[in-house]
């Protein structure tokens, strides 16, 4: 605003404080609840100041069956999705933007069609594929040969990670970035004697650094917070991720009383990793989110 108005300034601050309070309310309550005993939590109204039970509650939370194991699974899933997706997207975007070959258009459209197919939409057949990766092959060959190859990905890390890594968002992002890299840079590199691999490794990858970091944040949070897919493909509690594990221990809106104090402690522990990732890398994250749609 061009005019300087102290009233409007104060108004903005007021609205922001109220807004931030509303946004942080759930977290604040969770923190409070995690620091009291169950009785205190269930007292009506619940005390508004922190209690002394934080460490106790955390210990109880950590001692829940498979809790720590599930945290580890979440890390594996989040990191797995991030690494696989970034590697596959970078190379695919490079292949689709910097080379000329006959089936390029086909590859391009194949990749981008998956942007319109989030996993929730094709959930049932994707599950079937994970149950037996060779099912489509069997079906294809079924007419000619009697085949019954089996490759079961249920309850495995591969089954957990792969279908989630199978979408084009990362490729799209890298492609947008590559389109803004000046042509002269490649020409200079060619003159210097660089072939495609060297160009990608020595010039393109270092330039992509900001986008890679932003993508890392986005994918890590995405992987960590995945619910539907892990819930379907994993039936063994020790292979579940924390987010799904949490949902299973809470009966939702019903009449029974969950152990809120430990549940809140669990929630905090589970959310710690993604929150840290977002806050520590926030500058690149913001930049990446915004650049993604240019």
């Amino acid at each position, binding site marked *: 605003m061009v005019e300087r108005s102290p009233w409007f300034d104060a108004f903005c601050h007021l609205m*922001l404080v109220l807004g931030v309070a509303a946004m942080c309310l759930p977290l604040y309550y969770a923190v409070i609840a995690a620091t009291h005993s169950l009785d205190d939590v269930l007292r009506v109204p619940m005390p508004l100041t922190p209690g002394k039970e934080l460490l106790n509650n955390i210990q109880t939370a950590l001692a829940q069956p498979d809790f720590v194991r599930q945290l580890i699974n979440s890390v594996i899933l989040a990191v797995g999705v991030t690494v696989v997706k970034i590697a596959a997207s970078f*190379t695919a975007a490079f292949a689709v933007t910097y*080379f000329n070959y006959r089936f390029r258009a086909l590859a391009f459209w194949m990749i981008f069609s998956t942007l319109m197919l*989030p996993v929730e939409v094709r959930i049932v057949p994707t599950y079937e594929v994970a149950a037996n990766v060779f099912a489509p092959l069997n079906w294809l060959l079924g007419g000619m040969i009697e085949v019954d190859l089996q490759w079961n990905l249920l309850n495995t890390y591969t089954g957990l990670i792969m*279908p989630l890594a199978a979408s084009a968002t990362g490729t799209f992002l890298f492609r947008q970035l590559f389109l803004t890299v000046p042509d002269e840079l490649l020409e200079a590199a060619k003159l210097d004697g660089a072939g495609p691999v060297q160009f990608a490794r020595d010039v393109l990858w270092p330039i992509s650094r900001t986008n890679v970091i932003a993508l890392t944040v986005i994918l890590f949070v995405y992987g960590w917070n995945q619910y539907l897919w892990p819930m379907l493909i994993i039936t063994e509690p020790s292979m579940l991720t924390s*987010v799904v594990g949490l*949902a299973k221990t809470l009966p939702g809106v019903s009449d029974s009383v969950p152990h809120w104090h430990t*549940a809140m402690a669990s929630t905090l522990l589970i*959310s710690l990793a993604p929150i840290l990732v977002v806050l520590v890398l926030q500058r690149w994250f913001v930049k990446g989110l*915004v650049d993604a749609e240019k």
Partner: protein
Amino acid sequence: MIKRVHFEGNTWLVTLLLLPQLLVLLVFAILPAFQAIKQSVMMSDPFGQYATFVGLENFKAVLSQPEYLNSVWRTLIFTSASTALSMLAGLAFAVFVDHVIRGKSSYKTLLLWPYAISPVVAGVLWLFLFHPLYGAVALMLRQFGVDWNPLLEGSHAMLLVIVAASWKQVTYNFVFFLASLQAVPKSLIEAAAIDGAGPVRRLFNVVFPLIAPITFFLLVINVVHAFFDAFPIIDSLTKGGPAGATDIMVYRVYYDGFVAQDLGGSSAQSVILMLLVIALTVIQFRYIERKIKYGSK
């Protein structure tokens, strides 16, 4: 679509580069999509032993089910409400943060962290606040005479779900709105001020038209998110209840496919959803292409 300066030949290298991505996509995304289409026009028995081609029977059946139509209606309500709420809140926050000078980065950080929260966790947190028996906000509402009970009242359940879903989306909208507000050239605002337009006038006549493209983009993204991201919230909070009050389309696809084992029906619903998403994405791409052609940013 391809850079003017590029590499020719290198067919082996290209194949090597593309194979992993294409293979994974083919096996885990494209083929399942075709499978969904295939199953949507078949009727199978519960044991998957045989299947007969039934044309559009499944679609007709699904579209005539009152529960399905109810689900479409619920989805509409949920989507519009949560989109409107989260976009307005995001825009408001962006306008305020853009204006203040002190504390900008603190406000930004405090508004950023909800992005990291899983929808399930969001559902749990809001449930904690709104639980009819002991939720803090629920108690407050009781004191004001509102008989708050999402267990029994469908509209209360829907409200709860909407609030939880919107809360999650605000950050995303906030980041984009803030960036686009900051991209508005100061010279334009100053010129309008000299021309005599007051701050409110300027907001509506200068700023809003300039952020229209990003608003449109966010609209599509929010709608798609509302369709799909809401699944965990529903599953952890209400499971579609009470009595179908929060039974949105994506939830039905899952329920019919995995719980009720109605493969044909679930696939038909999948296909309908697919078409919706494709339509939305195509519209969005077209719009962006047009925007680029007209050279605006």
